[in-house]
């Protein structure tokens, strides 16, 4: 292969990559618009937007020769065109078909990207359904459809007949006082067709008589458009009371394309002299692009550099504070300002990485829809708070746990329609997926109105498996949280529906790996509610700085339940297993950090040091024995593995204010070889079998 061909191949691959990225975004947008359509919140623009998305996907597919995708997109596009013209009403049937078609379109795009073959007639049935719908066969006779709000999209029957309107538009002072903008009105007209603009100077007074804040200018516009007069008038909806307006139809324009635009004015007001760029024929808005595409690596680089600056700043601060106050007046103030600006900079940079959870939420309706069809249930997913922003790295890892939880909700939570009816519930089951910010964390809630958790069965199962002592009495929320224990198959217990029995312990582990927590609340018979609380970013974590000998370690705050200094009476030795601490009736194994990490000069006696009770995923709590707590701090997480290797029990490193490196403990991996694990001896009976998942949420 010659170099030229190589280059061409490489750039084609690059274009392809960009195309598929765009496809994903376009699909997301289309799904969003379809959801609006389904909820009858749609306006004209919705259908246009869906059409544009499908059209763009088709165009790109044609360029790359994805013929199957082109053929399908074409059929879908034709239907959408029929719909936006208004010759076919938007009925729930149509929306359902569109949703299915969008799913198929996503699959076809996937096929084109991964070159994995779908079955040959995968889309054939759907294409036929689309064609039937276009012909009107799919519409049940006489069923009144939801008509899209009349507007610009409703075309004149004499297709292509371009009319000329003469419009006089004289804004009054009130128009500006109500914060309206003539430019937006003119842009609105430009969306309908070509506009010729002249400025009206006739009201302009002598300079001496001119009021600074008054408006003396107006515009005479000639609009050539295929839209109806009503559509033209609609553009002036917001300003009609605050201006002198006349719109008259002056005739039919000759259908010559490319009407030139000349701004016949030397008027200095910005509205009149604004450059109106020629618009594309499809009538997209002429607004400049609102976003730019940036490589994630570039953003990460900036994030890293800002992290460095934060550390540098901390160092400077320490130095500055140690100087005599009159050594350099203003230095402290300067450092203070620096620190404030840096904090703001850091927030702004993190905001760039932040993405709305929409990118992962948007995949969920399809999941629920398909699963509901397969299980023969009627389920509605209501999504809200999609615009809540969270760091990209967290979003990427949210998809799996959310999928698990939603699958469980549809499979085990929601009852069959008949069962629901018998229980006096609406046949249609509802699952809510909500996201929102709460005190520096993001909280995602998945709630259903299904059968809830059967506590008796759960408790019986837990006892049978030896997860709970036979005589222990547990609070309701404690029982609910038992489902997160490993070895607890949900399928057999919470519902009799046979299924995967997705282990909730896996979900919990995933969420913990993100530095998050999960909790469940349930009302037997009325439904369950899962609460996920996640950090906004993985690059920064809240940590407790602890000292062991001369070493300094960071324990992630999310793992810490409490810290205490035990008395000798509370510590017992278990032969061959190490020490345990009695904590409110529970035996917590002790883990001496200095022994495990071979640190010299550390406090060897837990009673003279501090025990930090930590909890990773699953197995309960462990008490880490350290010398003392040095304080709480936000730290920037750095990788040890970039230049060294993974180290047992260490999750990463960070740089402290003094420039020294401190290692961040990985509580889960610490316990992997901690020796003394959670003792399998029966727990002391008592009401305090702690499952404290809810604690951090409150």
């Amino acid at each position, binding site marked *: 292969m010659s170099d030229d061909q190589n280059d061409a191949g490489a750039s084609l691959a690059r274009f392809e990559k960009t195309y598929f990225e765009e496809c994903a975004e376009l699909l997301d947008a289309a799904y969003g618009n379809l959801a609006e359509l389904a909820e009858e919140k749609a306006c004209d623009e919705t259908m246009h937007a869906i059409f544009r998305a499908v059209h763009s996907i088709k165009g790109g597919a044609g360029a790359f020769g994805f013929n199957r995708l082109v053929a399908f997109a074409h059929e879908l596009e034709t239907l959408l065109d029929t719909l936006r013209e208004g010759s076919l009403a938007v009925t729930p049937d149509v929306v359902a078909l569109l949703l299915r078609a969008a799913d198929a379109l996503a699959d076809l795009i996937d096929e084109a990207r991964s070159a994995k073959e779908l079955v040959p007639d995968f889309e054939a049935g759907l294409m036929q359904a689309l064609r039937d719908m276009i012909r009107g066969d799919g519409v049940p006779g006489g069923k009144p459809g939801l008509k899209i709000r009349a507007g610009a999209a409703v075309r004149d029957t004499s297709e292509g007949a371009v009319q000329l309107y003469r419009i006089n538009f004289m804004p009054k002072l009130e128009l500006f006082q109500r914060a309206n903008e003539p430019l937006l009105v003119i842009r609105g007209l430009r969306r309908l067709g070509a506009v010729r603009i002249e400025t009206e100077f006739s009201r302009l007074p002598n300079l001496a008589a001119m009021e600074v804040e008054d408006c003396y200018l107006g515009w005479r516009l000639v609009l050539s458009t295929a839209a109806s007069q009503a559509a033209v008038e609609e553009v002036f909806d917001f300003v009609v009371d605050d201006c002198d307006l006349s719109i008259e139809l002056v005739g039919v324009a000759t259908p010559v394309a490319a009407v030139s635009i000349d701004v016949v004015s030397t008027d200095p007001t910005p509205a009149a002299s604004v450059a109106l760029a020629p618009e594309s024929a499809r009538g997209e808005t002429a607004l400049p692009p609102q976003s730019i595409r940036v490589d994630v690596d570039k953003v990460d680089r900036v994030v890293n550099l800002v*992290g460095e600056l934060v550390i540098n700043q901390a160092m400077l601060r320490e130095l500055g504070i140690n100087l005599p106050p009159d050594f350099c007046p203003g230095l402290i103030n300067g450092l203070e300002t620096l620190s404030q600006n840096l904090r703001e900079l850091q927030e702004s940079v993190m905001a760039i990485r932040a993405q709305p959870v929409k990118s992962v939420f948007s995949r969920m309706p399809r999941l629920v829809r398909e699963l509901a069809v397969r299980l023969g249930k009627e389920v509605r997913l209501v999504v809200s708070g999609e615009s809540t922003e969270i760091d990209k790295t967290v979003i990427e890892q949210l998809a799996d746990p959310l999928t698990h939880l939603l699958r469980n909700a549809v499979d085990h939570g929601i009852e069959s329609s008949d069962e629901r009816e018998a229980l006096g519930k609406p046949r249609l089951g509802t699952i809510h997926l909500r996201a929102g910010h709460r005190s520096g964390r993001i909280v995602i809630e998945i709630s259903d109105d299904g059968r809830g958790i059967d506590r008796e069965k759960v408790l019986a199962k837990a006892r049978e498996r030896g997860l709970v002592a036979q005589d222990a009495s547990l609070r309701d929320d404690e029982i609910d949280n038992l489902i997160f224990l490993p070895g607890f198959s949900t399928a057999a217990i919470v519902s009799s529906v046979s299924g995967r029995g997705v282990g909730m312990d896996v979900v919990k582990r995933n969420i913990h790996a993100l530095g998050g927590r999960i909790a469940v609340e349930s009302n037997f018979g009325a439904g369950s509610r899962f609460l996920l609380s996640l950090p906004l970013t993985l690059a920064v974590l809240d940590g407790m700085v602890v000292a062991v000998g001369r070493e300094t370690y960071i324990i992630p705050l999310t793992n810490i339940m409490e810290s205490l200094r035990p008395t000798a009476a509370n510590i017992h030795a278990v032969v061959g297993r190490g020490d345990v601490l009695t904590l409110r009736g529970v035996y917590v194994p002790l883990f001496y950090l200095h022994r495990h990490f071979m640190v010299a000069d550390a406090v060897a006696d837990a009673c003279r040091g501090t025990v930090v009770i930590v909890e990773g995923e699953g197995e309960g709590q462990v008490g880490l024995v350290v010398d003392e707590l040095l304080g709480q701090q936000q730290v920037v997480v750095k990788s040890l593995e*970039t230049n*060294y290797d993974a*180290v047992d029990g*260490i999750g990463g490193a960070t740089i402290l204010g003094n420039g020294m*490196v401190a290692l961040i403990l990985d509580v889960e991996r610490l316990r992997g070889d901690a020796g003394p694990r959670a003792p399998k001896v029966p727990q002391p009976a008592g009401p305090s079998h702690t499952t404290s998942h809810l604690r951090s949420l409150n």
Partner: protein
Amino acid sequence: MALQQASMPAGSASVRNGGGIEGSARVAEKLQFITFTLDAEEYGVDIMMVREIKGWASTTRIPNAPPHVRGVINLRGVIIPIFDLKARFGIGLTDPTKVNVVIIVHTGARTVGLLVDTVSDIISVEPGAIRPVPEMGTQSEDNFIDGLVALDDRMVTLVSLSGLFRDKAEPSLYADNRLSQ
């Protein structure tokens, strides 16, 4: 005292790919090495691998690491491990003071620091002047010597960074160095 290298020229990379200095096709070009001492002996590393040279500063210990791993330092925000070369060569443990020097080298995808006694010189060597290590009668599995150079009455041992830390004790460390270069 920093010797910052903007980029690694292709010539130098191919030397490493050849698996040794002898394999280099670029006979005409002189090769440059930074030499340093461990006790009385003098060693050299390819100057193209060296990013900077800095004085010893205390490190953060890594728990349960082998003795030649002296811990990690913060080099302008990057966490870098420091290796005690003397300990790695099995000729004792360095007791670092302020006069000891850390050579920051970049090998493969990693940046690491080498703790040595002193940095002494920069030498230019004709590739032909590099002699192979003579048969010593001892079977060593270590593969961290690229060759020997005679300078007047001195002998410089050329250290192969890619072969340096391949150790049964830490198989994952640097195992894929040659591939990644």
